[in-house]
């Protein structure tokens, strides 16, 4: 499976692929481009300035060390399949510009019983955010841009 794409992610196709006769539960995690970042709750003290107010995003741009990111995502899938009894485990991350409300990452996991898919889904997004060499650039509505390099606790 190819895990990186420059095109919009077809979430419906991924879900359909995960709905096999062996599965009783499908869990989906989607990361989407959010319009507003508030200083208090969001990562990075330098994102919103000293005011701690709300900042508006116009879009996100994602870049990756593609060859390594593909491998690291494939490792996540292998590890999740080893830790949980899964039927399908599908991960796609979009690169380039991701407009507001569009999907940057889709994780779709199915299993016979729900507990496995729920646990794997959460572990996959947490671990993807720790390990996979993909970076997000905030493109603020005021025209400024900033790469996001979060501290571990901010992920």
């Amino acid at each position, binding site marked *: 499976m190819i895990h990186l794409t420059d095109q919009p992610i077809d979430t419906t196709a991924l879900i359909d692929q995960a709905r096999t006769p062996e599965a009783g539960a499908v869990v989906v995690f989607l*990361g989407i481009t959010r319009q507003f970042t508030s200083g208090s709750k969001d990562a990075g003290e330098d994102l919103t300035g000293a005011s701690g107010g709300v900042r508006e995003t116009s879009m996100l741009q994602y870049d990756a*060390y593609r060859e390594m990111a593909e491998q690291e995502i494939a490792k996540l899938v292998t590890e999740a399949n080893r830790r949980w009894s899964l039927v399908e485990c599908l991960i796609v991350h979009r690169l380039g510009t991701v407009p507001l409300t569009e999907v940057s990452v889709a994780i779709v996991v199915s299993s016979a019983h729900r507990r496995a898919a729920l646990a794997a889904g959460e572990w996959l997004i947490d671990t993807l*955010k720790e*390990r996979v*060499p*993909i970076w*997000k650039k905030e493109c603020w509505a005021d025209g400024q841009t900033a790469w996001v390099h979060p501290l*571990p606790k901010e992920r």
Partner: protein
Amino acid sequence: MKVTVKLFAAVRDIVDQCEVMLELEDHATLEMLRAKMSEKYPPLRPLLPQTLFAVNAQYVPDSTPLEENSDIAMIPPVSGG
């Protein structure tokens, strides 16, 4: 020996290149490469302590010895998802 270092995200913007070639002593480690980058590009210093290295597209510890033509990448804190 010569090594090539791929750069990404803020590191790439600061250095203003997608990759750099560096001359290091033979059997230099990533620790020494990190020091060299710090010396050559002072604006990188705030990011360097949190930046990991990959060799041949795999995360490796700073103690890893490098070889001529090692395919190295600097991985500043990631923010996918």
